[in-house]
């Protein structure tokens, strides 16, 4: 009796349409994420003949000093990058939230500039400043850009905005009452900093360290362009796969690349901003005290960073618009006529097309996915599986996604082989690669929507898809716009996964820039970078307009 009762009661709330959608999205995710990763691991543990090899590949990898030196190199640059980025990010965010410096919104936007250009372009800007013909180099300061130094500076530029944003959120959301209480009790500023500010930041600091380390650990663009002979894992994997076709060794490096992200994932450091939960309606904003010395110091610091970033952008402009920097500084537009051999202007449009497709399809996929996770009831284990998968892409760097896609989709026996070398696989890799952050955005937005909306609709006999389109979607436009922007901007600048997957007849801008730089066409590379920057800033502004309206 009891069993029949419980079967019936599960059946009565069962929604077939939702069940089908859920199966569909989970199938897509499984096929394009779980299976490829599985193939990667199986390759890492098999020999070239396809037989199980245990740890033999790892043994031969670490037995070869010319290969395994990359591991130490990568750890080295990641550590140094992490120290600088975390410190700079904290100070910069502190300046913007806790001091009275002038030009805060200016500084805020400048700090985000690196997000809008590919990492290869950070390196390109550095070439203009510190390279053999760089401004600073010609003043007599040679920092020996090509190699370790260049990679580190480049990775700092790349990770700084992430660190800054994490600290900004944490520092913005703080309860002013804590500081008022300190004032009343006569606690000195330094003690306030040590006993109130830092403890509140503990979580964010650890978080930021993990994020910066992982990003620097897996970046491909900068080492590719200015790494010189300094080998890191991300360039190694590329050489193994694309140069020597040693798939098993490539897979080994791929698994190594996963390690830091997996560690941070397991320790739960990737899901940011847990400390905002202490916020409630009683929280009051902070009043910032007057302190000219503090403000002047922080202004100088922010000014230094901002000037550096602006210099990077200006050097791109100079490179792109002068005939032959530094020998002929006459203005010209000729660098915008791109060599056909490198893909021409077509790659730029390819990039835009791919990014629009990733933004549109990605937003739909992410939103439907989060909706099913948040609002669909009674699918127990499927929902659990979906939630488990949803955050895993955070732990998988682009290079690894790219390699596992090759392993999986390039196999002749795979019925999905036909997407290999098309735009479809590029879009798919972008959606998977950048899935988790938009997922958290969408979930956050959906959690804010009253659960009772669905119940009211159900009691009025309104089908769930109508509630979805007429209520949930319109009420989440803001989040959806943010998600679309995120997918677009990242798809415009990404190289890592794409470098394994693009085909010669569908080349994209960020890859073209890499090739131009390698071929010495750095003026054209600068010109192409400016185009990417331009579109990304435009999209960002469009997002702002949508946000203001809703």
């Amino acid at each position, binding site marked *: 009796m*009891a069993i029949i*009762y*419980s079967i*019936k*009661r*599960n*059946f*009565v*709330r069962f929604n077939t349409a939702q069940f089908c959608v859920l199966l569909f999205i989970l199938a897509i995710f499984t096929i394009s994420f779980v299976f490829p990763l599985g193939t990667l691991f199986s390759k890492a543990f098999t020999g070239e003949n396809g037989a199980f090899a245990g740890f033999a590949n790892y043994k031969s990898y670490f037995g070869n000093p010319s290969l395994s030196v990359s591991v130490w190199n990568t750890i080295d640059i990641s550590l140094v990058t992490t120290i600088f980025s975390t410190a700079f990010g904290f100070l910069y965010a502190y300046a913007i939230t806790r001091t009275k410096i002038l030009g805060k919104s200016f500084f805020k936007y400048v700090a985000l500039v690196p997000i809008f250009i590919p990492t290869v372009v950070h390196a390109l800007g550095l070439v203009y400043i510190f390279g053999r013909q760089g401004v600073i180099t010609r003043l007599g300061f040679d920092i020996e850009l090509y190699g370790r130094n260049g990679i580190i500076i480049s990775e700092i530029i790349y990770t700084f905005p992430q660190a800054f944003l994490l600290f900004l959120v944490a520092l913005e959301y703080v309860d002013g009452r804590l500081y008022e209480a300190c004032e009343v009790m006569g606690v000195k500023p330094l003690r306030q900093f040590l006993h109130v500010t830092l403890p509140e930041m503990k979580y964010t600091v650890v978080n930021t360290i993990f994020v910066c380390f992982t990003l620097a650990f897996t970046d491909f663009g900068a080492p590719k362009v200015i790494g010189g002979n300094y080998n890191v894992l991300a360039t190694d994997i590329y050489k193994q796969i694309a140069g020597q076709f040693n798939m098993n060794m490539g897979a080994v490096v791929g698994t190594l690349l996963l390690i830091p992200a997996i560690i941070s994932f397991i320790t739960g450091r990737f899901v940011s901003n847990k400390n905002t939960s202490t916020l409630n309606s009683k929280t009051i904003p902070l009043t910032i005290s007057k302190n000219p010395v503090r403000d002047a110091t922080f202004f100088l610091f922010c000014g230094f960073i901002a000037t550096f970033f602006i210099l990077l952008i200006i050097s791109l402009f100079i490179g792109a618009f002068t005939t032959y920097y530094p020998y002929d500084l006459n203005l010209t537009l000729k660098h915008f006529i791109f060599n056909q051999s490198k893909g021409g202007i077509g790659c730029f449009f390819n990039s835009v097309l791919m990014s629009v497709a990733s933004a549109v399809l990605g937003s739909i996929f992410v939103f439907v996915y989060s909706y099913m996770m948040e609002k669909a009831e009674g699918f127990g284990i499927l929902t659990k599986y979906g939630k488990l998968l949803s955050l895993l892409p955070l732990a998988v760097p682009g290079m690894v996604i790219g390699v596992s896609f090759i392993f999986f989709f390039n196999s002749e026996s795979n019925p999905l082989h036909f997407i290999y070398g098309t735009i479809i696989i590029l879009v798919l890799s972008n959606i998977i690669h950048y899935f988790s952050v938009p997922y958290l955005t969408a979930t956050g937005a959906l959690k804010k929507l*009253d659960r*009772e*909306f669905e*119940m*009211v*609709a*159900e*009691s*009025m*006999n*309104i089908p769930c898809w109508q509630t979805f389109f*007429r*209520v949930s979607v*319109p*009420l989440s436009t803001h989040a959806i716009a943010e998600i679309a922007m995120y997918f677009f901007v990242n798809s415009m600048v990404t190289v890592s996964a794409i470098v394994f997957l693009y085909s010669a007849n569908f080349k994209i801008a960020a890859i073209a820039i890499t090739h131009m730089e390698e071929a010495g066409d750095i003026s054209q590379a600068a010109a192409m970078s400016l185009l990417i920057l331009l579109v990304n800033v435009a999209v960002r502004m469009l997002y702002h307009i949508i946000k203001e309206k809703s």
Partner: protein
Amino acid sequence: MSFLEIKNITKRFGQQTVLSNINMNIEQGELVCILGPSGCGKTTLLRIIAGLETADSGQIFIDSRDSTFLPSSKRNFGIVFQSYALFPNMTVMENILFGLKQKKEMTSAERKKKALDMLNLVDLCEHQNKYPRQLSGGQQQRTAIARAIALSPSYLLLDEPLSALDAKVRAKLRTEIRALQRKIGITTIMVTHDQEEALTMADRIIVMNNAVIEQIANPHTIYNYPASRFVADFIGTMNFYNEGEAMRGIRPEKIKVVEHWEPHDIKALVKELEFKGAFTRIHSHIPKENSEFFIDLPSERVENMKLQRDTMLFLQIPEEHAVRYSV
């Protein structure tokens, strides 16, 4: 057989039993209040009745038919939630039409007319093109009711419909909802944790505590003869005292204060005077029982008696108003 019958409903969330063996009958056209403290399972019960949640065991009969496993959409309920759940991106009119669109047998003109009728009923016609955030709390409330009854349900379920409103509006809406309910004669189940609301509005009150039903009766009986200590305490104030082996209770306003002492009268010392407007609540100490009594007297009388701290009072407890409890 009743219009709606609930039999042995039990519901657990994990380890916690939220509803334990709930039984009740609801007759056609009546307004029943489910009254209980926060977290006692009222909303859960309402959602199980509506089919938005399933029980772990037990049955629900609607019109004598076993409807335990009937999907929500087939049960013909209108429901108004604690938060109203008005769709913020739709105007008042659109909110009401959204549900009506499911009535395929109606033309769009008929739907529009029906919606206008509903708005008339709750007196919101001139606000039909406003968005929920442009309405006052009371107006939002009425919109939610209009939306719920637009589909002509056989039952109306209200989950704390007035809890988000301030006292004045609340009192006004109580009468309005009650009048509306009488007018269209719809069977209504209303959940509340406000005893006054339940007493003024309900035909019958179901008092719940900790997942179980404590008492089901009309407001008079509930107030005058509360079946348990919990009910007595939860609804109004009750003074408890011992009479022989039995525990007894008396409401503060039922206690008589007399000028001259007679045998059997109880002596009490005034401890505190709490002015409440028309009447004053006297906190007093009974030396013989070593307990505290609350006594409500008209404020005018308190003034005339020139009561002060430690004034001695003589109290009589009318037998017919004393309630007896098994201990």
